[in-house]
């Protein structure tokens, strides 16, 4: 099986949890730093003023949301190919992180839209596509919640994750086309050189946060599975019978 109980003795578990805690603190400090840098070096936008600074969370969240989906796709494929439970757990962890990022993205998009255009939602191509992606993530997670058998859950999630990932570029493309027909593009410019540095460093900081989240979630899932396997061992050990 994919998880070895050897690496989960009490001492090593506590050790890795402490290390994880320090890593987490470090990463969040890093993120706060990059945010502060980006906010202080960037000039208020002509039209949007300081509201523009929301971009430093919104845009990196968008990029990393896509990366999370990519991770889901890769590990789903790997699971279908190799059948190792570990791959399913990583994909699920990535999906959860991706769902959170997408939710964040949508909320920030709405917060940005209200003062800019006076309405909460504008059917902007990228935001709308993100909304669809959010539902795809959530569908994946709800499917997992409703299936008890671990093999079935892993296999179904992998198939759903892969097809979902396939749909991501298709959704983006078709929604963008749909919007260009009815209304000109309305999202803020992200290529202004003033903002690029801020965006880049925050994107990297968010990526590190994403990796941390996925890793952390995977570790807890691993621990659950290890507990499961102890349970298995107990169940099999006391069986008796002529083959024992």
């Amino acid at each position, binding site marked *: 099986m994919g998880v070895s109980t050897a690496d989960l003795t009490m001492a090593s578990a506590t050790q890795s949890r402490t290390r994880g805690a320090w890593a987490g603190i470090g990463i969040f400090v890093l993120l706060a730093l990059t945010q502060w840098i980006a906010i202080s070096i960037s000039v208020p936008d002509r039209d949007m003023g300081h509201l523009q600074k929301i971009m430093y969370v919104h845009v990196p969240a968008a990029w990393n949301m896509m990366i999370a989906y990519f991770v889901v796709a890769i590990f789903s494929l790997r699971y279908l190919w190799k059948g190792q439970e570990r791959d399913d757990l990583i994909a699920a962890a990535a999906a959860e992180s991706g769902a959170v990022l997408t939710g964040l993205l949508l909320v920030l998009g709405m917060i940005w839209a209200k003062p800019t255009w006076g309405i909460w939602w504008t059917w902007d191509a990228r935001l709308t596509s993100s909304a669809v992606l959010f539902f795809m993530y959530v569908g994946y997670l709800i499917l997992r919640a409703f299936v008890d058998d671990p093999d079935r859950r892993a296999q179904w999630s992998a198939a759903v994750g892969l097809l979902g990932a396939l749909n991501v570029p298709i959704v983006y493309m078709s929604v963008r086309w749909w919007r260009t027909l009815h209304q000109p593009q309305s999202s803020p410019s992200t290529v202004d050189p003033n903002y690029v540095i801020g965006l880049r460093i925050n994107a990297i900081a968010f990526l590190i946060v994403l990796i941390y989240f996925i890793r952390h979630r995977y570790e807890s899932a691993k621990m659950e599975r290890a507990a499961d396997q102890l349970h298995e061992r107990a169940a099999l050990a006391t*069986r008796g019978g*002529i*083959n*024992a």
Partner: protein
Amino acid sequence: MKPDARVGEYPGSRVVAGTIRLPTVTLRITDRDDAAATMTSVTRRFGRRWALRGVSLTIARGEVVGVEGHNGSGKSTLLRILSTAIRPTGGTAQVFGEDVVKNADAVRAQVAFLTHYPGLYDDLSAEENLRFACRMLGIDGARIPEVLARVGLEREGREIVRTFSAGMQRRLSLARLLLQRPRLLLLDEPYNNFDPAGIALVNDVVREVRSEGGAAMIVLHDRHSAGNLLDRVATLRQGVVHESSDDERAPGAPLLQSLVGGRLT
């Protein structure tokens, strides 16, 4: 015993096919590779519940094995794994040498599984159900009248299955099984919902398959209905085989059974 016969499941040993003559009984050892079905340390879980917790057994060609046990002991799961309906969580199983996971299609071609639920389409007639089965099996429907007659449903061919009693549905399932000419029969409580004529029919079919070199595994609640059909009965309890008794003609057979990898007669 033959001096150079090496037996058992000890490392480095192998089952030797041959005959051992003892004063009161003749023991014939079947080579494991020639078995109709083998299971090695098969486990199967459903969520947190372990239905099978390490089952190893062999069904030799020409053997009819009964499986007894309380509800929830794992009997149906055993059959379902051998039929390739589900995969084992751990361990391996082979049917006529083909692995149930890796060569599932080859196994399906040789196995017929009679489930305790009918597995039929209620809105189709008996004939239509069989015709569907023929097309799915890739055979033509020439034998449909013959198998219907065999199970005593020759006059109900056009009737919709929804109108059938449980016994009639069971007969139709049996008819479908006969279309296949299986080599391994897996019967899950075949005697339920059956009158004596139906029970005799099931046993006839089992005898037929056995005489052609096939084998059968029958899950049952009481051995009575099987008459003297069973060569061996395994008792499952909580997902493990607890006894595997031959009939009374071979005293001490269980002990020898656990030493020898193959089947004893």
